[in-house]
């Protein structure tokens, strides 16, 4: 696949620390092209989630540039920006007091869509994530399995048709079988919807399965960014070599 796509998200030498002298991001640079999935992977504490939250302004960076749609995120109204970035988190973060349908329609309603428009959109998305509205729309999150909740989380993120999805360990809380099923479905949604995705995971297999390109992060820096086959074929340094040999047993 070609990678000469317009970047939808771009990080240029981004730095961020929560405490002086202890950078969580230490000069991070990468791009996510249109329709591309970039997986950020690495040990915990490496800065993956922090990087993701800089995009939708849940956090602000100290220096460098974070661009979304070609514009500095700090110049944008965070509320409007977030409504253009689908956000999926571990355990889905669903609103427990709302039905599945109300959860999925959350962003369209924030955007002031008409009721019928929001409703037909939620029908469509529940269909897409294999939770037929007739059966699931009126249920509450606690009446769903972990995998079903995660599907609702994806549907909610897609509801207003954002060009970008930010996914933070989206399948992290699932058992291996549900996880594998969600990964397959993810590949299918992606093929149908053509969204750009910035995916955070600690699981290299997941990163390799879902990412068009993978960025291996540790201590706030990208040790290598490339396609899974590039990384497997020529690890950039010892850290990457060790990380991939720990995670992916050589066949």
């Amino acid at each position, binding site marked *: 696949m070609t990678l000469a796509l317009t970047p939808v998200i771009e990080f240029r030498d981004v730095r961020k620390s929560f405490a002086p002298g202890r950078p969580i991001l230490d000069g991070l640079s990468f791009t996510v092209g249109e329709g591309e999935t970039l997986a950020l992977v690495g040990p915990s504490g490496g800065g993956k989630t922090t990087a993701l939250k800089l995009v*939708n302004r*849940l956090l602000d960076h100290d220096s460098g540039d974070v661009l979304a749609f070609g514009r500095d995120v700090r110049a944008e109204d965070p*509320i*409007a*920006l*977030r*409504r253009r970035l689908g*956000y999926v*988190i*571990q*355990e*889905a*973060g*669903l*609103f*427990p*007091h709302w039905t599945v349908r109300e959860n999925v329609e*959350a*962003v369209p309603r*924030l955007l002031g869509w008409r009721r019928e428009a929001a409703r037909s959109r939620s029908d469509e998305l529940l269909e897409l994530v294999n939770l037929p509205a007739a059966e699931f729309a009126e249920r509450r999150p606690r009446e769903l399995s972990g995998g079903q909740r995660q599907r609702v989380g994806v549907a*909610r*993120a897609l509801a207003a048709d954002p060009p970008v999805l*930010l996914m933070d360990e989206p399948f992290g809380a699932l058992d291996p079988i549900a996880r594998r099923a969600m990964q397959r479905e993810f590949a299918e949604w992606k093929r149908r919807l053509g969204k750009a995705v910035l995916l955070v995971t600690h699981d290299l297999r997941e990163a390799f399965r879902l990412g068009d390109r993978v960025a291996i992060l540790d201590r706030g820096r990208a040790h290598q960014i490339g396609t899974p086959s590039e990384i497997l074929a020529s690890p950039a340094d010892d850290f990457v070599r060790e990380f991939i040999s720990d995670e992916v047993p050589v066949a």
Partner: protein
Amino acid sequence: MSAYLNYFWDRRAEIAALTGEHLVLVLISTLVAVAIGVPLGVALTRRPRLAKPVLGFANVVQTIPSLALFGFLIPLPLIGGIGARTAIAALVVYALLPILRNTYAGVLSVDPAIIEAATGIGMTPRQRLRSVELPLALPVVLAGVRIATVVSIGLATIAAAIGAGGLGVLIYRGVAIVDHRLILAGAVPAALLALAADSGLGIVERRFAP
């Protein structure tokens, strides 16, 4: 037993009227306490630095013996004087703490992941408060209202001491003439009111559990 029932029955009109006064005192003071306590509790969650001193102050006020507080309020302008207004002011003071504390605790108890999700999908702080934090905190807030109401029903009997009426009138009169039937004519309905409020508001509380 039947002698008591007959005694109550003969005074049913007076008991009913005083029960009505009692309910009005409790209702008004609880509503005012909710109107002050809920917004203040929410505000404290936004200003954690103020939370400790404000809750601490409310705690201390709570320890003032109720009869003394009624007495303290009488000479104050606007809220003071003899009568229901002073009693309501004192009851508000006592009802405030459980409502304030539970609102504060309830809003803070909402899962941070859900709050972050709400922020992350693009809710403004106000939308997040109204459609996520308050609804999820509601059972805890209502538990505070329930405690406040039950406490107020008991305390309101003392309001009779400053001429505010209510079931305390029968109790004070009974004490004055050492007639335990008269004391019970005030105490039993007050206890029943408290039990009814407790279970009624308990049902409301469970109804709103997320």
